């Protein structure tokens, strides 16, 4: 989910928007082809479930999912019009908005389960670490997958909530796949890990000291499906159909977690045995607006953006 280095050049991408061609209508059968930029991670399961279940075909949409390895390409891809829609986390979107890039969320992407200790994302320490709660991580070295992003903001929230002062903590950037090993070898004191690496880390003896997404805000909306304002202005009809289809997919997947676990075996390489027992995120059909507002506020406190972003303008 590395997309930060690109945010600063997003404005340039906007200039390229005019040259891009996408979303071609095929008059023969009334179907519209769309491209969705995503990442091959657990969070996007509903998109794949919805395609398999035909929820997009019902809306006369032919979906091509384009998986970026790191997500670095998703936001610029949507801005430049290479993708019609994208999947991305709320912090990246707020940063983009703060730089004047007109992105708009259409639907919830995924959300924390809201249950402390039973979320798809956890702040873990090595099994033999002396840390018992997030407060014990004051002044410690903590790995997050992206500096200045939703992870860092959430970990600070956990330390604060446990009664500690997050200002002394050092954050280092580490890809999720490297975190279980780094924690086990004490190269970092703690790491904010998401599934499937949370399950893998636990298998190797790591302990969860906090569910940081739960601490950041109740039922935190982590990511959204979004598009460029220009797409809404020019092709409202396609946007409405996509929104309807993805909302139906979210509701279906939330009610049928086994469908999500099945889908994981198609677009990721997660071992079936791990896919069966990892903690799935929640997929509520609604964006939790107050959580987005809270994240935006935390980002100001943590200096990720200089002033609060008008959250209502970027949400549906």
């Amino acid at each position: 989910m590395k997309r930060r280095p690109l945010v600063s050049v997003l404005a340039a991408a906007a200039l390229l928007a005019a040259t891009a061609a996408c979303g071609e209508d095929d008059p023969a059968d009334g179907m519209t082809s769309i491209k969705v930029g995503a990442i091959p991670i657990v969070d996007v399961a509903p998109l794949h479930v919805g395609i398999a279940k035909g929820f997009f075909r019902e809306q006369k949409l032919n979906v091509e999912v384009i998986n970026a390895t790191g997500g670095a390409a998703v936001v610029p891809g949507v801005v430049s019009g290479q993708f019609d829609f994208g999947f991305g986390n709320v912090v990246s979107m707020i940063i983009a908005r703060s730089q004047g890039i007109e992105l708009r969320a259409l639907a919830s992407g995924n959300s924390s389960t809201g249950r402390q200790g039973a979320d798809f994302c956890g702040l873990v320490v090595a099994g033999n670490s002396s840390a018992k709660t997030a407060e014990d991580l004051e002044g410690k070295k903590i790995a997050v997958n992206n500096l200045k992003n939703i992870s860092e903001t959430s970990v600070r929230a956990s330390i604060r909530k446990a009664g500690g002062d997050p200002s002394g903590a050092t954050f280092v950037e580490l890809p999720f796949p490297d975190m279980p090993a780094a924690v086990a070898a004490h190269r970092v004191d703690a790491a904010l890990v998401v599934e499937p690496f949370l399950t893998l880390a636990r298998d190797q003896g790591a302990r969860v000291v906090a569910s940081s997404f739960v601490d950041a805000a109740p039922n935190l909306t982590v990511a959204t499906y979004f598009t460029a304002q220009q797409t809404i202005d020019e092709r409202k009809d396609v946007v409405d159909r996509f929104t309807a289809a993805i909302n139906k997919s979210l509701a279906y997947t939330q009610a049928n977690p086994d469908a999500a676990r099945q889908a994981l075996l198609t677009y990721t390489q997660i071992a079936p045995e791990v896919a069966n027992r990892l903690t799935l995120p929640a997929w509520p059909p609604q964006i939790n607006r107050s959580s987005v507002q809270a994240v935006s506020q935390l980002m100001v406190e943590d200096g990720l953006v200089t002033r609060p972003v008008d959250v209502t303008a970027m949400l549906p």
Partner: protein
Amino acid sequence: MTADELGAAAATSAAPTPGARPGAAVLRGGNALLGLLGFATFLALLEVVPRLGLVSSDYLPPFSRIVGALGDLLREGGFWAAVGDTVWSWFLGLLIAVTLGIVVGFVVGTVPVLREFTASTIEFLRPIPSVALIPLAVLVFGLSIKSTLLLVVYASFWQVLIQVLYGVADVDPVARDTARSFGLGRWARTLHVTWPTALPYVFTGVRLAAAVALILAITAELVIGIPGLGAEIGVAQQSGAVPRMYALVVVTGVFGVVVNVGFRALERRLLSWHTSVRSEVPV
């Protein structure tokens, strides 16, 4: 990867005489058995080190498990599609870079004024690591093969160009003057004097470019997520499928060896008349 590029760049700037490959001559002796034994020892270490617990087998699976994952891979249609994607972007990028490198190299190399005029610009552009262009590639071309091609062509073009420039400069003045006194025109001189002189250099350039092109093709796929072996490695990594990831890495290694051996064989065959190649034959 940047180290490889730098290594290749260092090799080119040292203006190698195409014949000087002492390592190749040594390896071709009766030491093939020793080489095989060394490789077998390496594989045995890969098997033993994780099994002894020196490195956690969660992060470095024993070699036998990697082979098992490789066996699964070979039966997947998706894997072969990824191989096809990588081979295609490697080949296309290399073709464009070699064509451009030869044409530009000959034009610039044979016109002294042009060579002086472009020297500083080439020296400025050449050391820019191709990976630094990834953000640009993503913005302009997104997740399409064009992004890969941009990186591949940029990195491998210089390998060819520099070699061609050295090759063109290496023309024996006596041969050139002789050709001129025989009344050969510019085109005939290029064809009969410059081209044969430069050819071994061109081949060295193509061989270096082939390796660099592969590095950049895999890098682009891995970092950006463009379909291919690199993207498969990325997905395996993000899914915690460690043996599969190593199996894919082994595949890219085999690809690299095949490319290098193939181009060496081609070089030996096509340049069999040249002293640089003849001297490689053990006497």
